[in-house]
């Protein structure tokens, strides 16, 4: 029975996710270090962002170069709701995600029917539009200074996000839950439809699938998940900055996918961790971060041509029958 097998594997993955969360939660207890806690929170925020981009690029074959737009919209919407409207954190999160999903629906409606390369830079153009809006709408967004003055973090349900350890647990939980949700989505019929569209769009169309509708759904979902990453980041830095909406954000997201590999579901997360680590090491030695990063990117794009987990998967497959998504 394939259905039962699938259900079991999903239960297995849920258990795995729970174990991962417990491990992450115990990490600061075993090795108390502020640097480690900060690193994991950033990894959670950017890891959700990169994994959501992988829904588009890896599963949907839609190379978006403007995904940072939703990271920023999540961060700004959340920050503004907390600062100006004074809502509680769960309400602000829900509204920020809804806002980003609506934004993704509008942008997606214009972009998803376009050919690959048009899609890439139209998403980029919309991201830059958001960036210029953020820069120029100074009374609301604080312009190039970003949302200043800190984001209030009132406690809710016994969770006090102003406390670093609570924030850490919250970020880990968000990371695990989002990844699990994305994993389930990508293993659902919707996920497989998306893969079919990626591999052969005309065939999907002949089978009666409305290709653009599926693509739009993927775009909205990816935008919503990306906004959760943005919300986590704004909680961490207690603000929101126009850099979130700058094109380098999307560029880094794409590089995280490339670095980690797109054929494994956790590849983007691995890529995120590697890029953050690289970032921390490089900025310690040189101010010419772009130069160094550029050379590393060239190395991966032209010499290795694949990500870290791709090599790992190959090694596993050579040893025994492995599973590939």
């Amino acid at each position, binding site marked *: 029975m394939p259905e039962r097998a699938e259900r079991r594997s999903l239960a297995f993955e849920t258990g795995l996710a729970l174990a991962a969360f417990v491990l992450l939660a115990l990490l600061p207890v075993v090795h108390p270090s502020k640097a480690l806690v900060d690193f994991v929170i950033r990894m959670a925020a950017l890891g959700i962002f990169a994994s959501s981009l992988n829904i588009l690029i890896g599963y949907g074959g839609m190379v978006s170069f403007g995904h940072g737009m939703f990271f920023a919209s999540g961060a700004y919407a959340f920050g503004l709701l907390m600062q100006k409207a004074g809502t509680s954190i769960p309400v602000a999160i829900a509204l920020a995600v809804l806002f980003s999903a609506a934004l993704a629906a509008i942008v997606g409606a214009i972009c998803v029917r376009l050919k690959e390369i048009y899609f890439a830079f139209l998403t980029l153009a919309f991201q830059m539009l958001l960036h210029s809006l953020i820069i120029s709408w100074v009374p609301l967004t604080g312009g190039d200074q970003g949302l200043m003055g800190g984001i209030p973090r009132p406690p809710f349900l016994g969770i006090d996000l102003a406390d670093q350890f609570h924030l850490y647990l919250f970020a880990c939980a968000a990371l695990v839950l989002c990844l699990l949700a994305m994993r389930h989505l990508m293993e659902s019929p919707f996920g497989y439809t998306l893969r079919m569209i990626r591999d052969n769009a005309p065939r999907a169309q002949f089978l009666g699938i409305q290709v653009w509708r599926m693509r739009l759904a993927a775009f909205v979902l990816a935008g919503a998940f990306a906004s959760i990453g943005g919300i986590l980041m704004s909680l961490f830095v207690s603000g929101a900055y126009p850099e979130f909406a700058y094109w380098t954000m999307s560029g880094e997201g794409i590089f995280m996918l490339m670095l980690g590999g797109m054929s494994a579901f956790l590849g983007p997360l691995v890529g995120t961790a590697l890029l953050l680590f690289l970032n921390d090491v490089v900025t310690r030695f040189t101010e010419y971060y772009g130069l160094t990063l*550029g050379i590393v990117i*060239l190395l991966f794009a032209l010499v290795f041509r694949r990500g870290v987990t791709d090599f790992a998967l190959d090694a596993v497959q050579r040893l025994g029958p492995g599973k590939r998504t």
Partner: protein
Amino acid sequence: MVTQVTSGLIIGMLLFLVAAGLTLIFGVLKIVNFTHGSFYMLGAYLAYAVYQASGSFTLAVLCAAAGVGLFGLAFERLFMKRVYGSNVLMQLLVCYAFILILDDAVKLIWGPEFKSMGMPAAFQRPPILLAGGVIPFFYVFLIAIALAIGGALGFGIARTRIGKVVRAAAHNPSMVSALGINTGVIYGAVFALGGLLAGLAGALAAPVRSMAPGMGFSILIESFIVTVIGGMGSIVGALVAALMIGLIRAFGSIGFPLFTEGLMFLFMALILIVKPSGLFGKDA
């Protein structure tokens, strides 16, 4: 009014030079050169350096155009060539890497602060007064040069033998190479020409715009908008759209100073909804 129109025209003309290269590269190679803005930046800085060293603006412009042209050739032959077959993702990554590298290289050589070249002595003449507006002499020169290049480019592609070969290579590269023409050389040449135009635009913009590392990206986005509106691969489309965008920018900065960029994007979205292939494009 006249002042606005001329400032719109020079923005449009500079955009046209950059966008023409972008659209040419796309038309022939079917790739979007995301480093094109960095080519423009390189042109401006090269012109600045040569002008500082020699004091001759003519020499500065020629060196910048030739230098960036050569850089474009090297970039295509050494790097882009390797990612033609693979997916868009790899092309994006290589371009992304080069934007980062070039921005930092410029910062390393010329420093992170804003630089300004200053108006060359030859153009320090009294401005032309026309219908109540003031037109600096340099603007007239700039518009004339851009129009001449646009004309030459259009003629070269539509009428000459080389232009025919390039168009054929865009249409069916394997057939062209089967007929004994080296398509690699054509690809390299198109990239060199695109680089040359971007470098020229950068050099011509140097006296009227300040420069800083990262300046290439905003012009890249604007020239993308121009190519999308005009239609990918169409030189005429690039000219018309560049002038439109230039005028929108010039007039928008009076009407909606904060939302000038937004106006361009709105205009682009409108065109895409009405005619996805752009004004002069064939298919989207």
